């Protein structure tokens, strides 16, 4: 009996596995399940989360703006900042922060539909955040190159590159000064920037490798959105406070999804181009991580580890302006690609593209 029960359980588990693999593979190709799953009665689990999210957005669109401006996520955000503050740098340096796989992401990231695109959100103001500064040098290389200086220089170069297309570019610091993480978050939010890009350099104490990686902040809220929506639909109309919760979720969905896209675009451009200069460079991909700056800012935000100061050759390269300009250029390409897919290039950028 026990064995039979076990076998039945086991085979059900296996069936689940088969279905999951199938769905994952469909998603990789950007497809939706077609016939196989269609025949079943529609349950909320069967509806793709992105569709559900869209429905929620459309339902709640009128109230949307009020909430974003009135409430935002500020209360939620600032309470987390304090507790996370001390961990931040160690996380930046940890070589094995969890990696992202699309298995996790895919429900929210459908290549065809971007929520921001649906709303045609415009991007005008970009905030660049050169990591560290002042008394906080960040990491440093064997011949003494400091992260704070390299990050600032690359940030400035990126700024002037983006300004050519009439984007308004603001920096969290212009000089070698210490700026707290909270201050950076406040600056970004009060300036109402549309994108936030933090620039850092990596350090791998135990390996000679040069790596590139990009972080974005993400929460595993999709399950919750689903559950909440499921609950809500049994006894609609929406209660006020419940609805607020949903809207907050949607807001972070958008930030999350857009951050992911931005991170992916920058990482791809930076890696494929640097690879031509340094064939050994390794692609550590894009990852979710709870960095304060990414959590706190209200706009799509990424943290790019553009290079690796522990690698001697790389340190030498970083000491040439030429190479720093190249890095800025590749980040710029990543940003512009992201904006192009979003349909949010400025006229100038479009013209440059066409010409």
């Amino acid at each position, binding site marked *: 009996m026990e064995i039979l029960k076990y076998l039945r359980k086991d085979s059900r*588990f296996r069936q*689940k596995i088969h279905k999951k693999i199938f769905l994952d593979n469909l998603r990789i190709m950007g497809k939706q399940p077609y016939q196989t799953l269609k025949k079943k009665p529609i349950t909320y689990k069967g509806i793709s989360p992105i569709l559900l999210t869209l429905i929620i957005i459309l339902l709640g669109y009128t109230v949307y703006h009020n909430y974003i401006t009135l409430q935002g996520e500020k209360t939620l955000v600032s309470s987390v900042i304090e507790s996370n503050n001390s961990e931040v740098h160690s996380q930046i340096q940890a070589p094995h922060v969890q990696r992202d796989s699309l298995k996790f992401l895919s429900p929210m990231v459908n290549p065809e539909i971007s929520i921001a695109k649906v709303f045609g959100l415009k991007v005008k103001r970009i905030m660049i955040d050169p990591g560290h500064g002042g008394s906080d040098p960040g990491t440093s290389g064997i011949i003494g190159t400091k992260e704070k200086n390299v990050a600032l220089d690359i940030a400035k170069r990126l700024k002037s590159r983006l300004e050519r297309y009439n984007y308004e570019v603001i920096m969290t610091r212009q000089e070698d000064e210490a700026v707290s993480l909270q201050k950076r978050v406040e600056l970004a939010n009060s300036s109402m920037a549309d994108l936030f890009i933090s620039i850092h350099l990596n350090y791998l104490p135990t390996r000679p490798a040069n790596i590139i990686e990009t972080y974005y902040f993400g929460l595993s809220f999709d399950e919750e959105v689903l559950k909440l929506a499921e609950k809500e639909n049994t006894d609609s109309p929406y209660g006020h406070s419940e609805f607020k919760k949903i809207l907050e979720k949607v807001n972070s969905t958008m930030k999350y999804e857009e951050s992911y896209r931005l991170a992916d675009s920058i990482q791809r451009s930076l890696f494929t181009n640097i690879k031509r200069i340094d064939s050994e460079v390794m692609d550590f*991909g894009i990852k979710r991580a709870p960095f304060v700056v990414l959590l706190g800012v209200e706009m799509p935000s990424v943290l790019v580890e553009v290079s690796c100061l522990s690698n001697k050759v790389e340190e030498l390269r970083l000491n040439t302006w030429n190479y720093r300009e190249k890095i800025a250029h590749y980040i710029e390409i990543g940003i512009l690609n992201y904006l192009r897919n979003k349909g949010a290039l400025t006229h100038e950028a479009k013209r440059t593209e066409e010409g």
Partner: protein
Amino acid sequence: MKQKEQRKDDILFVGVDLGTSRSSISASNGTKKWNESYVGWPKDFIAAKVVGKSILFGSEALQNRLSLDLYRPLERGVIKEGIERNEEAVKELIGYLIQLAGPKEDQKIYAIVGVPADAMKVNQIAIKKAVSGFVDSVMVVSAPFAAAYGLNLLGNSLIIDIGAGTVDFCMMHGTIPDNDDQKAILTAGDYIDEQLFSYLIEKYPNSRFNRNMVRQFKETHSFVGDSSETIKVEIPVEGKPLNHDITNEMRRACESILPAIIETTSEMIAKFDPEFQIKIKNNIILSGGGSKIRGIDNYIKDALKEFGDCDVRCVEDPLFVVSDGAMLLAKDIPEKYWAEM
């Protein structure tokens, strides 16, 4: 029932493992083949005459490397980026592997390819594209997961795959592993080669080593922990082959990857509650080429002792665990899913 039988005849299910150094295929007709992940094209017209083929694979390609443009197109299970011909090389390699599996003329082929647990979407798509020209339907799946499926270890276990470029960890606990269940570290087989190489040129500055030789030494004599044997290898010195004792260097190089493995293992186990920890600790499985290092299972077991007793085993057939598991998965996945891919 009838339909099932028919299905089995008409379709060849294959599992493919694309490794940095070796690739393997397991097929439902019983064929299992592996091949070094090298692809070479003759450099020019004359080279083509010399090798007598338009494309060479694996060890044959290595042997003829002077006449070839040689590619090792995979890195960590994905197509290396930046070099145009890599994609083509991967395609050829996959085509070659599938041909080795010996499908019948009118047989459909359904394939599952193991990819690194953390492979990015673009890479997964690239692999799928490369395979799709040769098969009727293809899916990708996390490689360690495929291994666990094949070994029937979906319950509570930790799989540690020691490959050339990475050591991949995958925690199985009755669900499909997610990000938190999987980790990779970069000190693996290639790293041992580098360490051994540098120890040897330091100890024997007058002898001529190369990396290929060093890797072969490793693959024949690797060990960790205590050993009463001395390891002697013949290396030419000023043209004459001389015996060299490399016992200590071998041990040091092989042991160099262990601290990170042990640290990661205990980190990953520590995240679970004590009851579950005990189950995992009794099911630590080593696979990949690096699991062939003599004494590695006992060494890890000893090192983990401070966390209580545990059991560390090596899989029997490290070359085929992933492809075998992928093939079994392919066989088990219902036809309706395959049809829709």
